[in-house]
């Protein structure tokens, strides 16, 4: 082949690579780095889950499962959703096991979008939403949340961007990268709007269990919303199971049937080994999960206080495991700041602009790290700010 470039799909070529990639290479080449750049738990999957998985292998669970996933797992998921949020899903045709929420998001978008359909994507947000919308033939329309509003999206902001072409709204609360959550009342306002404009909501609730203040409200549990919601969730964050790649989608039988069609032709089924592990996590993992959540909560407070003390203004995240402090006063872009911080202080953070253009002026710091590392990182950042006369409090 002479020139691959001519042969590539324009749709794929048009998508920029994730901004995180470039920074990843830079961090990997630097030695002695304390990283706050990791978007996954620092806990290893609880042993009882790993042990159950090993046992399943010994028993010979190495085959395909049904396209939908193991019925036992779907039943357990449905039971849990009912217990936690009073939403009822039929495990037989309203729950689909996927390879992470990532696949579920892709399936949902591909199943609903016609060319040119618009999808509202509140930003800053996880890096994959807009590219996935584009790849599915849709048009991502960003709705900017702001620091002034603690990065909570409001119904009014959403309504401004609604056009006759708007088909769906993506919600992700608790939010990566900001740690913002939405209250039941705020979600109710959004629900009204969704009804009024006949929209679909794709609700990515992967950080659900990591809610530290107030109760998490499942979007599908709001009046009349279950029918309009494609609920996405998984095991990565709550049960420290990122590498197992296991998630699920719940929704009306018709949308789930169409998502399953894509899933059966592209993925066939999620890995049985991961499904067996997830079953164990749901059945016996609550206690250990709550312990991890309590530990994140302590670290959250430590980090927020630490940042504010060294003069890095930080609003208090209410969920997930990220702090999203502002670096606007330094006069640097978030990429400049992150690079300088890496080189001079050997602390890795993720520049906020990779999560959308209005993430600019912020850095994402994960507190899924040990207390020792967090303390060390805060100290290093404090010195860095002082050495560069960037401390916002000291002027």
């Amino acid at each position: 082949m002479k020139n691959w470039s001519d042969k590539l799909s324009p749709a794929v070529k048009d998508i920029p690579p994730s901004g995180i990639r470039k920074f990843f290479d830079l961090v990997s080449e630097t030695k002695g780095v304390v990283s706050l750049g990791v978007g996954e738990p620092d806990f290893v999957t609880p042993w009882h889950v790993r042990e159950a998985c090993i046992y399943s292998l010994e028993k010979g669970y190495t085959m395909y499962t049904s396209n939908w996933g193991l019925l036992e797992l779907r039943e357990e998921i449905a039971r849990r959703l009912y217990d936690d949020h009073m939403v009822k899903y039929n495990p037989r045709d309203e729950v689909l096991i996927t390879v992470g929420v990532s696949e579920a998001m892709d399936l949902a978008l591909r199943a609903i979008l016609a060319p040119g359909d618009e999808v509202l994507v509140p930003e800053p947000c996880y890096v994959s939403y807009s590219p996935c919308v584009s790849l599915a033939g849709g048009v991502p329309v960003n709705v900017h949340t702001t620091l002034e509003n603690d990065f909570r999206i409001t119904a009014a902001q959403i309504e401004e961007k609604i056009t006759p072409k708007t088909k769906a709204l993506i919600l992700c609360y608790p939010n990566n990268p900001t740690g913002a959550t939405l209250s039941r009342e705020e979600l109710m306002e959004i629900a009204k709007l969704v009804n009024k404009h006949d929209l679909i909501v794709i609700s990515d609730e992967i950080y659900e269990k990591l809610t530290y203040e107030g109760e998490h409200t499942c979007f599908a549990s709001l009046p009349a919303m279950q029918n309009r919601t494609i609920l996405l969730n998984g095991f990565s964050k709550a049960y420290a199971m990122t590498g197992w790649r296991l998630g699920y989608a719940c929704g009306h039988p018709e949308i789930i049937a169409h998502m399953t069609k894509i899933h059966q032709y592209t993925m066939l089924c999620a890995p049985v080994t991961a499904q067996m592990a997830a079953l164990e996590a749901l059945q016996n993992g609550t206690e250990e999960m709550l312990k991890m959540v309590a530990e994140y909560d302590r670290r959250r407070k430590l980090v927020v206080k630490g940042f504010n003390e060294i003069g890095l203004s930080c609003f208090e995240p209410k969920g997930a495991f990220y702090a999203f402090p502002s670096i606007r006063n330094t006069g640097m872009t978030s990429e400049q700041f992150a690079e300088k911080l890496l080189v001079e202080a050997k602390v890795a953070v993720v520049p906020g602009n990779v999560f959308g253009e209005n993430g600019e002026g912020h850095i994402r710091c994960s507190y899924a790290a040990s207390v020792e590392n967090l303390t060390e990182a805060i100290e290093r950042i404090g010195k860095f700010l002082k050495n560069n006369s960037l401390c916002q409090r000291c002027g």
Partner: protein
Amino acid sequence: MCKTDLEIIDILENNSRIRPEQIAAMLDLEVAEVENRIKALEEEGIITKYLTLINWEKTCQETVSALIEVKVTPQRGAGFDKIAERIYRFPEVKAVYLMSGGYDFSVLIEGNNMKEVALFVGTKLATIEDVQSTATHFVLKRYKQEGVIFDDKEQDRRLVISP
């Protein structure tokens, strides 16, 4: 004893070197309050000592430990406690537990070598008046102690940056 105290001892039990400032930040408290609570916990004997967990097998120091099952005849009026005291007063004895089941006390003994431990059992422990019998089990290897796995092969395998 309130929830806050329990949280403080939970944190300290895992890391006794953590600073009051850090605990204060983690629990949303004033530093002075944390210090006062720790002091009170010490005075009440809830926090009894700050120790260091050492993997002796990695040092040049040779030590031997043994778990001894001890059967005794409880004394009238004093029950097991009086006999337990006679046992735990010996500095060689590192831990004593009253057990349910086939024997009465589980006694952990440490010494420089097997002979020393055997001698202690034979001359000091077995000769206590109310002790009926002893069974000595030497520890061959310690895999985990106080919830800590020695020689843990698990490490942070995460990518340094991920979305």
